[in-house]
């Protein structure tokens, strides 16, 4: 291929601007490849050149991933890219989301192919796999060389043969979870019966629609002494301080807010409100205790029924959250609780 112009997206760390302390960095466009981009350019081969690298801090991006992505794409427009590659982000939370959001915006605004690289377990994968081609990589930066191999291979294939030529069974990319219509001469009834017969006979069969299965987890042992227990409050009702200082999403949550309630005795209207795209907020906004029963729990603490309530309310809008994301967020919450000496949780939902 003659002169394919590639723009590469990196965060502040891989873009060699600094570590976590530089996560607030706004976008910088640099000519040519930076850091891993140089190796990526080699792996892409002759005929491809990384004409520019967009470097952006993970926090700057995560404040408003879609809006910031749109801005960033416009910054790179004058480079006239033919292909956009982002990452590898490995399993990083903000970075994988930033890469994917940027790829989606680039594809849309510049009408060119885009690929982001991340691990199967990356938060960005759950959120964006249906919207963007994602090249696969491991979850550690130690696997950078292989990650760049995959990103280059998938990038080339998408540009040269189109997205539809990709097959996760063969190419190093993540499954999309997309439903495709195909023409067949066998009716659904016949196919379903054939599957059932095979299943009953203990023979292999291929489901056409893999269903989400809820893995049964072993219930945790009960609280022994309630009076000695600090309770963590979680809500999927999206309760936040007025003004949404953490800029939480009102649907398709990808993280949870830490709402400070340590000094709060009662969730008062006007101070707290619901940020959730899936239910009528009127009643809860009139009294947020209707969603998060802090008033009652403070009474119970004073009475010695419980030891207290964790100082942060973990809050997110539950509507449209991907189950895989929920599982990850729940595990994160549990880790935070363990660290903070909180041993039981009360989750309230709409």
């Amino acid at each position, binding site marked *: 291929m003659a002169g394919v112009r590639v723009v590469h997206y990196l965060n502040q760390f891989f873009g060699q601007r600094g570590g976590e302390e530089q996560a607030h960095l706004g976008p910088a466009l640099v000519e040519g490849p930076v850091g891993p981009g140089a190796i990526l350019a080699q792996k892409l081969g002759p005929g491809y050149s990384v004409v520019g690298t967009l470097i952006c801090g993970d926090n700057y991006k995560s404040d408003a991933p879609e809006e910031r992505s749109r801005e960033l794409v416009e910054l790179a427009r004058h480079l006239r890219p033919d292909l956009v590659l982002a990452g590898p982000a490995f399993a990083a939370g903000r970075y994988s989301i930033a890469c994917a959001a940027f790829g989606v915006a680039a594809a849309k605004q510049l009408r060119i192919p885009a690929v982001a690289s991340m691990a199967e377990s990356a938060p960005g994968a759950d959120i964006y796999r249906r919207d963007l081609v994602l090249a696969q990589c491991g979850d550690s930066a130690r696997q950078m060389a292989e990650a760049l191999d995959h990103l280059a291979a998938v990038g080339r294939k998408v540009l040269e043969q189109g997205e539809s030529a990709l097959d996760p069974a063969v190419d190093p990319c993540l499954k999309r979870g997309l439903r495709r219509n195909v023409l067949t001469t066998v009716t659904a009834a016949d196919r379903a019966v054939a599957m059932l017969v095979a299943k009953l006979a203990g023979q292999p069969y291929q489901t056409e629609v893999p269903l989400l299965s809820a893995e049964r987890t072993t*219930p945790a042992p*009960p609280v022994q002494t309630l009076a000695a227990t600090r309770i963590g409050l979680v809500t999927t009702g999206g309760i936040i301080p007025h003004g949404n200082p953490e800029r939480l999403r009102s649907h398709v949550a990808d993280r949870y807010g830490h709402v400070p309630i340590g000094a709060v005795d009662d969730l008062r209207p006007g101070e707290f409100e619901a940020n959730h795209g899936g239910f*009528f907020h009127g*009643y809860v906004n009139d*009294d947020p205790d209707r969603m998060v029963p802090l008033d*009652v729990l403070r009474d119970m603490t004073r009475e010695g*029924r419980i030891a207290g309530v964790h100082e942060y309310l973990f809050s997110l809008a539950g509507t449209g959250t991907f189950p895989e994301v929920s599982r990850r967020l729940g595990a994160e919450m549990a880790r935070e609780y363990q660290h903070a000496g909180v*041993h039981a949780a009360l989750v309230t*939902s709409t």
Partner: protein
Amino acid sequence: MPAVLITNLPTVAEAMAVPRYLNGVAIPHVLGNPALDAIHEKQLRRRLVEQALALLCTAK
């Protein structure tokens, strides 16, 4: 760690095999009832929270 869910969608809790859950009042006010006066509403909320905490102390 044990967790208890107060929800208005018990069928979802069942389907997701949530071990400890409680049915709340209604979707727009899971732990309240605007038709009640403030005192009775808080009593209702207290009862629900007590039930939830009792579940936390129950083996599953």
